[in-house]
């Protein structure tokens, strides 16, 4: 085995440039796979994290009859007295923070411009809403007692030409099935770097939203963030009640989970295309080596080397190319992933219905992805050597010895 590897190493050294280029092709292939996987993983991870921190939380408590798609404000569809529930939640150590939110469908109007928005009543002092406070680009954040102020997202402000201090009209559905309209002052412009969310979401203090929509002391949901994302199922089970429904982030984001699975399957096709190109380079290199060394193969055969031993020699060369290629790929891919994990990959306003993509994708590579893709590269490279190796093994010694 060691002798076979030693000979394979020396054979690769005969044409260093060609061996290096072949190994580099494997490296580039492996690096590309790692980067593609990391970008996809980062994109989906970012979408889930965005959705959790902005919209779903790790858990939500809703009234049993609440339908998210209808955004009902009927009292029976809302949670009455959410503060009592939050007080109970605060005793659970895994719960980091919990806050009520009231969500109403509305229309924002400025002059002859109007746009459908989701009006979200929030507790401005809750740590859960820190993400919006820290995203203030102009003006100021809301005060709990503010009765005339709203926050608008950057895309909405840009489309309407809004500045802090400007007045807009907001119309909302109300709990009694009618609508109400009122003038509000833009207190601030925020950005979560998630265009799809920012352009359609307007914030106002919870108390004002409850009054405005006539929901009284009701909330659409209680938004809960946990200390550890993985605890969602356990905490949900612990706080399950017949009085309300408890939803986990997984059940609220099934679309993202399904999209990730679909994208993963699609990526496998891309992986095979990249590996196919890499394999072609390796096959070509080794086929050339077989033709160049036909007479030597004849000599080895004359000395008593069996077909499978000759084959093993070429597979050992492929193994060395693959080893160098995978190590190079891990280095190259690791550097690229590290760069994009730190600085991100700007995609701008790239919206997908139901998925809150940020404007920048941060690559994220898991050890499992790195391991499985490296193994796939190694195996495909070895598989690519089977044709030239079997070509060498099948050579008739007498014919091979006559080769020039």
């Amino acid at each position, binding site marked *: 085995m060691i002798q076979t590897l030693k*000979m394979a190493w020396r054979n690769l050294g005969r044409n260093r440039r060609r061996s290096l280029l072949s190994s580099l092709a494997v490296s580039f292939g492996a690096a590309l796979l790692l980067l593609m996987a990391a970008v996809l993983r980062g994109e989906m991870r970012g979408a889930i994290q965005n959705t959790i921190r902005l919209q779903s939380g790790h858990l939500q408590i809703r009234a049993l009859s609440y339908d998210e798609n209808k955004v009902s404000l009927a009292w029976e569809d809302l949670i009455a007295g959410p503060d009592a529930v939050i007080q109970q939640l605060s005793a659970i150590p895994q719960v980091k923070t919990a806050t009520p939110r009231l969500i109403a469908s509305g229309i924002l109007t400025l002059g002859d411009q109007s746009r459908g928005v989701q009006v979200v009543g929030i507790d401005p002092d809750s740590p859960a809403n820190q993400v919006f406070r820290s995203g203030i680009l102009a003006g100021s954040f809301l005060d709990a007692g503010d009765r005339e102020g709203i926050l608008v997202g950057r895309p909405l402000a840009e489309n309407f030409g809004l500045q802090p201090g400007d007045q807009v009209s907001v119309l909302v559905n109300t709990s009694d099935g009618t609508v109400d309209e009122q003038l509000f002052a833009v207190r601030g412009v925020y950005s979560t770097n998630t265009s799809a969310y920012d352009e359609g979401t307007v914030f106002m203090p919870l108390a004002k939203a409850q009054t405005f929509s006539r929901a009284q002391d009701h909330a659409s949901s209680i938004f809960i963030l946990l200390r550890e994302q993985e605890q969602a199922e356990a905490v949900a089970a612990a706080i399950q009640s017949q009085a309300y429904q408890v939803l986990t982030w997984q059940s609220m984001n099934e679309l993202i989970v399904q999209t990730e699975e679909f994208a993963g399957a699609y990526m496998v096709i891309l992986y095979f295309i990249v590996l196919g190109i890499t394999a072609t380079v390796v096959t070509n290199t080794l086929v050339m080596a077989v033709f160049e060394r036909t007479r030597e193969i*004849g*000599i080895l055969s004359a000395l*008593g080397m069996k077909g499978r031993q000759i084959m093993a020699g070429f597979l050992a060369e492929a193994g060395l190319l693959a080893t160098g290629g995978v190590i190079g790929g891990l280095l190259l891919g690791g550097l690229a992933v590290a760069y994009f994990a730190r600085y991100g990959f700007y995609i701008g306003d790239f919206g997908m219905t139901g998925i809150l993509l940020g404007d920048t994708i941060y690559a994220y590579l898991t050890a499992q992805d790195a391991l499985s893709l490296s193994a796939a590269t190694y195996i495909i490279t070895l598989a690519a050597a089977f044709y030239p190796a079997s070509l060498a093994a099948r050579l008739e*010694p007498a014919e091979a*010895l006559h080769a020039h």
Partner: protein
Amino acid sequence: MSVTSVVDVRRVFQIGDVQTHALRGVTLDIERGEFAALVGPSGSGKTTLLQLIGLLDQPTSGKVFIDGRDATGLNRDQRADLRKGTIGFIFQFFALIPTLTAAENVELPLLLSGVDSSQRRARVDEMLAAVDLMDRAHHRPDQLSGGQQQRVAVARALAPNPSLILADEPTANLDTDNGRQVMEIMQRLNQTTGVTFVFATHDPRVIQYARRVVTLRDGLIVEEKVAPATIGKTR
């Protein structure tokens, strides 16, 4: 006892629609310890006969025996196994593995035969000493002269202690001095170890080393001559 014999072997090469009859029914016994030359003009069938005896090729018809064993029906791996322990080769074009040193080239057939490392090292040293190349043990073929390369090939052929060594035009690419050296080494090893040598040549200076000369023409043996008077005395 015959170390090898061929019985009515024919070899026909088919290239497109053209059939070439390289051997047309050759029967030959080679006794243990012989130093025999296959001679004849180009195309007479010398190399083809050597390749059939060496199990590098298979006859279209007829039988090949090695140490009394019928090797005609053996598959590739069985032929490789039989070659490994029994037959050594020396080729016209030196035929060393360019990435291996002289010592490693000599070691290669021992590795293939599964000889352990200490025995391998001892045998390699012994063989390189036998061809007077101890000082070139760690040189690669491109650092050796043609004569030195062919001496390494002789050492390699002899290393696994075969009963038969086949040499195809062993001096054709060597100058007179180197050719003479190689033939003298082969002759000495034949006399000291008793290994059988069969070599193909059309060089009269080489033929005179042989104790038996088999002449082929157009794929047939046309003459056999024993020359006992010249054994070890011609040089």
